[in-house]
């Protein structure tokens, strides 16, 4: 794994993915403010999260940790996958 530094998924990236893969639109301010709230608050269901995980795996050519799809909130999700991306798990 090289050039791991550039692998950082932001809240904005996640919001864009939610929109594109699951059709879920979020208000950016609310999303940033409530990053600890459950995904269901924003209307994202388990299939939607699975789709996002698959999308990230394809984008970075890496397997995400199995817990990724069980994350409850955007903040928890980003912490987990960014840690996986920087360690190259």
């Amino acid at each position, binding site marked *: 794994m090289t050039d791991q530094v550039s692998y950082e998924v932001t809240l904005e990236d996640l919001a864009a993915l939610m929109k594109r893969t*699951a059709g879920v639109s979020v208000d950016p301010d609310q999303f940033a403010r409530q990053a600890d709230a459950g995904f269901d608050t924003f209307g994202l269901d388990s299939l939607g999260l699975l789709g996002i995980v*698959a999308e990230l795996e394809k984008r970075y050519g890496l397997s995400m940790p199995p817990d990724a799809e069980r994350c409850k909130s955007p903040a928890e999700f980003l912490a987990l996958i960014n840690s996986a991306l920087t360690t190259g798990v």
Partner: protein
Amino acid sequence: MSGREPRRAVVTGIGAVTPHGIGTEVFWKTTVGGGSSLAALDRGGCEGYPLRVAGQVRGFDPAALVEETFLVQTDRFTHFAMAAARLALEDALLADADFDSPYSVGVVTAAGSGGGEFGQRELQNLWGQGSKYVGPYQSIAWFYAASTGQISIRHGFKGPCGVVASDEAGGLDALAQAARTVRHGTDTVVVGAAEAPLAPYSIVCQLGYPELSRATRPDHAYRPFTSEACGFAPAEGGAVLVLEEERAARARGAEVRATVAGHGATFTGASRWAESRDGLAHAIDIALGEAGCRPEDVDVVYADALGVPEADRAEAGALADALGPHARRVPVTAPKTGTGRAYCAAPVLDVTAAVLGLQHGLIPPTPHVTDPCHDLDLVTGPARAVEARTALVLSRGLMGCNAALVLRKGGARGPHR
């Protein structure tokens, strides 16, 4: 019977998304005016096949009627069904209704082609790129049950849910099943069919139907009951109806448009059109019997009108067998020559036209047909003003099913509120 009035299933709402446009009003206006929406097939990737003419739904903005979270996880056939269901519920003034119990509302749809476009995209992802490129929604978008499930979820309906995955006649079977569900105790059933068979691979599959019209001119492609009959033009779109128990509908002040009074279904073999004469006649007998109607009570017939000479002959023969001398007098129409046949949705569109026709005292005509060659009073040219009370809708499927449905204007206590 304990003297209690039997439960009846009546139509209180209609939503249609058809080649004539979005909404029931444009469907009815175009239908009654004898308009046609058959045109050169020009959807992306669909142009190069020996299927040239179809009824496409144009100007459909699914996002205007269905939330984006549902759109991304469903195929076009479910977009049509969800849009039509919403329009039907709005029409019945039930869109924001507070139902006594979620279990009092069921959903039944018929589906004959499934989520072909969505499925083809995911097949392309799989075979072009690999299994990891298949998305999470393929498992719920391609299968025939998608529309019933999504309508139930979107509106919170927990009543009996059903899916008839059948040939064309399945559209009438779904309506009959919904009516029985109402009679057996569920107050409301949202029922209908929508199809989206105009994607490249779906078209390739349909090319195997010998009944499919290969004509290149929209005005020549689908002319049943004529000596120029050359098969049928397929279509996309569909309609959804709200069926309610009559007393419950009246109690909330709903407009009772028509009663689903009788249904018959038979089977006589795939593409055995001569034998469908017997099958259709039997289905009509059963439907009239269930409705308590005599043949001469039938005021209008919405024909299956396949457009295959042998099949058209069989249908005319079935009417003669089942209705006797009345068959030569009763007006017969086939407005689907203006939309094309949307598989399971085709007879549901006919039911839609029949209910509206009963309401307005009009029989819409059969576009593109001028000189029928059968001994039928086929309504061609302008719509005909007839104060009809009873309509008979017929349907046959390419896999051999025959069905007849009897609709009566208004409810048991007459046509008016």
